[in-house]
């Protein structure tokens, strides 16, 4: 099987980055320019977990969950601020070669237990009684609620997304209730990690939106500082999405970034605009604000909520 291992080692190293404070721009530059590295869209697609920057203590359990979702063989690499990107790129490539040649995998960090006991419970082994009373695979079934568009009673799915979701700013954790792909409720559980000024550069902000639109190549060119080479990008963003007085809509902000201008206006309470949007619109909306602007706006909204009216 050694020729298979050689072939595998020759492929680009699949890496899932978990981005901590201050490392957003550096990680984006790394994947846009370093050879032989591929940014995996989910941990299932990755073999290496790159932990960039400092992860605060409250995000550690999430990092452990993420670590255990990488299939075997897997390895974790830490990238501390100050290490040059050429060095981390060499270390990542070396780790990938090692793994492909049979280096030992890391064991799970969490215990191998389902979220709730369910095996052998109930008349059909579904973990409870009745049609909706079971907990198959340890999780209860979703309960119904009125659809916010037409009141149709269908299932509501509640989950916390983040802080290392690739489509959200790093550090942002949202508690979302979804019906299909429509957001019914949204609460901010943790703010995005602070990032340096260079993460707010127009080219990087535009590249983030392009990546969400599926234009990976154009996004990489943008990150490296070239023109995106994709026709009529602005048309891919729905008109009127995320319109704020003084800040235009998401399409205007992408336009400004594509022509190298910083967007000016700051949103008020962006999380309140999420209910009613479909999931892809919500991620585009959040990406249409520079990370620094979004963090400030979310922090202000949280401060306002904490003061009793």
């Amino acid at each position, binding site marked *: 099987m050694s020729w298979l291992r050689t072939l595998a080692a020759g492929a680009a190293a699949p890496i899932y980055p978990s981005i901590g404070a201050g490392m957003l721009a550096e990680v984006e530059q790394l994947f846009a320019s370093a050879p032989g590295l591929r940014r995996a869209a989910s941990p299932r697609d990755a073999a290496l977990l790159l932990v960039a920057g400092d992860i605060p203590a409250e995000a550690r359990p999430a990092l452990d969950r993420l670590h255990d979702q990488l299939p075997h063989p897997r390895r974790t690499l830490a990238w501390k601020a100050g290490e040059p990107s050429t060095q981390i790129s060499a270390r990542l490539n070396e780790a990938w070669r090692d793994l492909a040649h049979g280096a030992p995998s890391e064991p799970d960090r969490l215990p191998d237990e389902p979220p709730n006991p369910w095996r052998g419970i109930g008349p059909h082994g579904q973990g409870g009684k009745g049609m909706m009373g079971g907990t198959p695979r340890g*999780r209860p*079934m979703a309960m119904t609620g009125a659809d916010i568009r037409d009141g149709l009673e269908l299932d509501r799915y509640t*989950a916390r997304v*983040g802080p290392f979701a690739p489509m959200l700013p790093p550090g942002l954790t949202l508690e979302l209730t979804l019906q299909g792909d429509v957001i019914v409720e949204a609460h901010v559980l943790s703010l995005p990690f602070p990032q340096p000024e260079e993460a707010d550069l127009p080219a990087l902000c535009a590249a983030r939106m392009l990546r969400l639109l599926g234009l990976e190549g154009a996004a990489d060119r943008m990150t490296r500082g070239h023109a995106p080479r994709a026709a009529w990008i602005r048309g891919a963003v729905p008109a009127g999405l995320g319109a704020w007085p003084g800040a235009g809509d998401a399409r205007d902000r992408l336009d400004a970034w594509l022509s190298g201008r910083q967007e000016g206006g700051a949103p008020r309470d962006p999380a309140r605009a999420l209910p009613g949007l479909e999931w892809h619109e919500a991620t585009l909306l959040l990406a249409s604000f520079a990370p620094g602007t979004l963090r400030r706006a979310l922090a202000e909204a949280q401060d306002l909520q904490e003061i009793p009216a």
Partner: protein
Amino acid sequence: MDALLIIAAWTGLAALAAWGMQRQAGATAPLAAPFLGGGTPDTHAWQRYHFRPYTMALVFIAFEMEMMFMYPWAVVFVREGAKALAEMGMFLGILSVGLLYGWREGIFRWQ
């Protein structure tokens, strides 16, 4: 007889492949958890939600019925001539009334 043997061989191979894959699927609970960027779900992912594009599906069926009628019509069109043309015109006219009705009801708006 040959065909039967080939089918039996393929079935056997598929069963072997399925058996081989099933062992890899034995993932631990944290490895099999749904990916939410480090977050956790409250409920099982199995859920019923509103499938919006069914009006689109009705429009698709309208066009498909039209095509089903057009194939036999095209075969006899040369022989029948103007009569066949008039018949198809009537059929398309009736169908387009349905489409106009749908348009008025807003089925072409994505919602």
